[in-house]
């Protein structure tokens, strides 16, 4: 048992060290603009634009559920125009960024881990290094930058979708007028609500990409190892997203 504890402690320290080297290499790779800039737009398309349908789909139903649950909660006691307040605030501050982040942790993070893990176990990464390509600037940095830049874009459109579906639900199912919904939406709006959600989503994107790339590049053990890396990426990303969400809530709110 003592040996097990010692082994795990050494592994944790070793992982922290590898993580430090990984981030340091990433910083150095930032100077290789010629390499990563050519690949950035492609990654932005794959990570961002291609993820929009998933994010919008989730946000659409979230908006519907929020409006209905808000009306259920407010029945009799609170004016119904507060449905707009709750839908807007919740989508902007919490559900937009977090639900989109969790969904994309599965889609984007798992894709990165599987892609880089397969490259790693099939020695394509070694081949790139042999050809004098820096894997950090060629593989990691475009993905990390693309995720960081595109997550706020995805989340912004997801928030818009959620608010729109909440508004439509209020119109059709709650018999709330547009003016009342907009009144509730504007009632306690602060610009901080917007930038807080977008900033949070950028950190989520960066985290998902870093975790996916780090675990993917550390893959070993063939196809089984790729599967394990994919699973670990999704789990770690989800956990880190929730931890970051709480952290930013403490720091920024």
């Amino acid at each position, binding site marked *: 048992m003592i040996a097990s504890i010692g082994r795990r402690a050494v592994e944790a320290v070793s992982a922290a060290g590898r993580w430090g080297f990984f981030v340091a290499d990433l910083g150095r790779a930032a100077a290789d603009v010629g390499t990563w800039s050519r690949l950035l737009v492609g990654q932005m*398309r794959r990570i961002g*634009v291609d993820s929009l349908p998933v994010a919008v789909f989730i946000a659409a139903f979230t908006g519907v559920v929020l409006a209905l649950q808000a009306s259920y909660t407010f029945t009799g006691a609170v004016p119904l125009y507060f449905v707009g307040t709750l839908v807007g605030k919740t989508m902007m501050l919490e559900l937009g960024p977090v639900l989109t982040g969790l969904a994309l942790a599965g889609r984007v993070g798992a894709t990165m881990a599987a892609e880089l893990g397969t490259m790693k176990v099939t020695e394509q990464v070694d081949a790139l290094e042999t050809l004098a390509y820096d894997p950090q600037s060629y593989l990691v940095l475009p993905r990390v930058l693309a995720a960081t830049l595109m997550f706020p874009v995805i989340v912004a459109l997801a928030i818009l979708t959620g608010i729109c579906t909440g508004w439509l639900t209020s119109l059709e199912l709650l018999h709330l007028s547009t003016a009342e919904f907009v009144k509730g*939406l504007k009632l306690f709006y602060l610009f901080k609500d*917007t930038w807080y959600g977008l900033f949070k989503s950028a950190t989520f994107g960066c985290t998902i990409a870093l975790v996916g790339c780090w675990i993917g590049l550390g893959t070993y053990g063939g196809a089984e190892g790729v599967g394990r890396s994919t699973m670990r990426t999704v789990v770690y990303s989800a956990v880190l997203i929730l931890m970051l969400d709480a952290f930013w809530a403490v720091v920024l709110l």
Partner: protein
Amino acid sequence: MKRENEFAVGLAVIAAFAVVVGGALWLSNIHLGHTEAVRTARFRTVGGLSVGNPVVLRGVRVGRVEGIRLAPGSWVEADLKIYSGVALPERPAVIAASASLFGEWAASLVSIDQLPNDPNVRAAIAEAQAAGGGGTKWPGATLPDIGQLTAQASRIATDIASVAARVQTAFDSEAVIELRSSIRDFGQIADRLARVTNEQADVFGSVGTNLRKGSDALGHAATELQATLGRVDSATNQGQLAAILNNSAAASHDLHQASQDFRDFMDAAHRNQESLVRALVAADTVMSRIANRTGTLGLLVADSTLYRETTLTMIQLRQLLSDIQANPRKYFTFSVF
């Protein structure tokens, strides 16, 4: 493919940017292109007013609260951004008040000449106005939060409910039955009182009759008294009354003298009584000492030894006298030389 990627990404980014910027401007009620004037209002407290709350004039939104900060002299200053083209009152004041029961606040612009009839508001506006600010700062007042008013109303309602509960407790079904019984009893008492009143009216009637008879008798007595007084008057004329008065004066003098003698006698008796009291007190003291076995008599009474000794001494004295009488030479010697 690359151009397609660029187009898709660019479209997404532009759409997101438009959503964020347009949404933020729309939700914040910021009107781009409109020139807005920022004016400052001075409050003692702004209550629940916060940045972004509307500024209204006669119920119409004409701006928003741009900033709130603490100012020297225990003041709070609020920057109000007013839309251009709004005709403001000539002498404006600002009243911060809750706009609904759910925490919404608004800053209402009013003319100082048309302030609400609230002494607190008027006092606050006057104080803020007196504080000056170079005429650039509008005076402000804050109405109590609706939450405070509802809390006060809640306390009043609780008190009313308590009173109602007490009334209900006091007037339960048993009390109502008793009250009904009391009313019935009161009715009976009223009936009896009416009967008594009628009877008393009859009595008063007979009393009146008797009084009339008594008055007649009194008149008759007065006539007789008048006759008696006539006789007395005639007796006075013959000097009999003067003699009676002289006799009465002499009797009174004798009585006075007797009274004086009696008073002297009582003084003497009083003095004798005091002497008697003193004697009794002295006797009581002696008896107390004897009873307490103090003093000579007390000791004699208490101590049998002393009694025996005294008795023995008396016996010896008698024997001595007998011996002296029998043998005088033994005790007395006469010699010439």
